């Protein structure tokens, strides 16, 4: 077996006239997290469904844990866990019943299935709700149960399709901890997300997809270097000093990148790191420019796309991604 747990080459998939994937390559080394980053409708979910054997690609090959998704789907299914964008748990069953059912379908003896269910419910803080029907769970609890269900068989490759979309920040952090502990146990994780921050926090490598195509593949560090490490945004107290502000900020921007105006009187520049902050403050004071906003942040997904493709990701959206 190679040291790649996921290896996909040239995947294409169309739904009628909609081209969901137009030749996608993905690779994840064993024991790492591959972040697949892209806006809604980019083809992330389609790619995951192909890798998880739920869909057949029109062309291209994919190996998961060394097995071909087309010719050895059952070997692949033996090795994977899948957590979809929408919690795929059975609403009418309790938390325990859901997990025991999955365990038994994975050929665990009943006793072992029960023990594994209890262990996972405990890990995901669902022990108290174990005997309630999943329809009575909150959104966050359903996500956790869903993730637990995908881990019953201790899969070596875990697909997480937008696992934190719609979760509040605290729950998001909990989910991140789960991903980290999966990887520390030796699993390989493919995580799709719309949040650059999430990919940055978890992924060893990031593949950026848009309109069914890979537009970048790099480490988070490499990707950030391409798009500029951070953004610094300032808004002048006195609108008349706008041009002076632009001049000052141009002086600290990453070599040669032009400041961007947002049309509402703020200006944004790319900077190398937060170390420029004292320098900016000193220069603004020296030039006697007052500001009522001065902030440092990671580039948004929109800015990543703008840098990589030269177009705003909202410009020409692909048709709504087909989910089923």
């Amino acid at each position: 077996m190679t040291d790649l747990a996921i290896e996909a080459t040239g995947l294409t998939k169309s739904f009628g006239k909609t081209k969901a994937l137009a030749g996608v390559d993905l690779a994840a080394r064993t024991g790492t997290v591959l972040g697949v980053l892209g806006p809604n409708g980019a083809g992330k979910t389609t790619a995951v469904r192909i890798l998880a054997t739920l869909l057949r690609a029109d062309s291209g090959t994919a190996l998961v844990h060394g097995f071909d998704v087309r010719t050895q789907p059952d070997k692949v299914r033996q090795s994977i866990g899948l957590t979809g964008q929408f919690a795929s748990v059975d609403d009418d069953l309790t938390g325990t019943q859901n997990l025991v059912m999955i365990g038994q379908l994975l050929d665990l003896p009943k006793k072992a299935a029960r023990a594994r269910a209890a262990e996972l419910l405990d890990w995901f803080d669902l022990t108290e709700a174990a005997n309630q029907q999943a329809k009575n769970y909150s959104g966050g609890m359903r996500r956790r149960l869903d993730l637990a269900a995908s881990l019953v068989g201790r899969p070596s490759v875990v697909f997480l399709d937008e696992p934190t979309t719609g979760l509040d920040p605290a729950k998001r952090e909990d989910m991140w901890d789960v991903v980290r502990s999966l990887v520390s146990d030796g699993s390989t994780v493919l995580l799709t997300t719309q949040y650059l921050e999430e990919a940055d926090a978890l992924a060893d490598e990031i593949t950026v997809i848009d309109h069914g195509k890979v537009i970048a593949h790099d480490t988070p560090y490499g990707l950030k270097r391409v798009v500029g490490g951070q953004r610094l945004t300032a808004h002048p107290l006195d609108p008349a000093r706008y041009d002076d502000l632009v001049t000052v900020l141009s002086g600290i921007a990453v070599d040669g990148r032009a400041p961007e105006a947002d049309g509402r009187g703020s200006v944004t520049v790319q900077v190398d790191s937060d170390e420029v902050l004292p320098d900016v403050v000193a220069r603004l004071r020296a030039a006697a420019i007052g500001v009522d906003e001065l902030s440092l942040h990671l580039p948004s997904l929109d800015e990543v796309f703008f840098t990589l493709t030269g177009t705003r990701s909202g410009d020409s959206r692909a048709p709504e991604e087909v989910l089923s």
Partner: protein
Amino acid sequence: MKKRFSPRHALVLAKRNMTKMVRTPEQFLDVTLQPVIFLLLFTYIFGGALAGGSQHSYLEFLLPGMLGQTIAMSSVAIGQNMNTDIAKGVFDRFRSLPIARSVPLVGAVLADFTRYAIVCVVTMAFGYLLGFRIATDPLKLLAALGLAVCFALSFAWVSVFVGMTVRSAGAVQGIMILFVLPLSFGSNTFVRPATMPGWLQAFVNVNPLSHLVSAVRGLMLGGPVGSPVGWTLAWCAGLLVVFFPLALRAYIRRA
């Protein structure tokens, strides 16, 4: 390389479907109240007119037929339920597990066994209250009920196929009723076919429900049963051979 079908997996999913049924008891109305109401209606509205004034002798004629009719009607629900069930995420989970593709469908049909068993018990018990008595022996009664359930489990695949093919649960019901009504009325369930026009008799004579009803009548009331039992079993096999692969293919394509 295909995963072999595992009966154990099918039983696990049958249990899932039973749990869901028990959680929504109103799902049992069509197999409990419906046979009671139909038996009452037909026995007392038509019995007098159709059987020369003797409701009792009509009940004797009707009850075995009622069993076939109710079973055909109650097969509508499985298609409807599967149609809504499959739209939910849990089927994505099943598809991502190393189990045979047919397991979720077989599990659902196995769980439906409970409903058909209830039809048998309710029909026989209520018939007994109204005065129905078998003229044969308990073994033949069991054989009759077994044959009815066997037919139901085969016929259910028609409903599953429709459930996998059409868009909404409402459409499943519409199509299945269109299918079930001519089958149940165009048979020997309610009247002897002798008074029907020739073309209709031709239909009645090939209708699988007619064979089932003749077989059940013979097994409960006496008389020759070899040919109708044989035809019923042949129909069961035919329905399975045609509609099981169709339903499975429709399910896989729906992914």
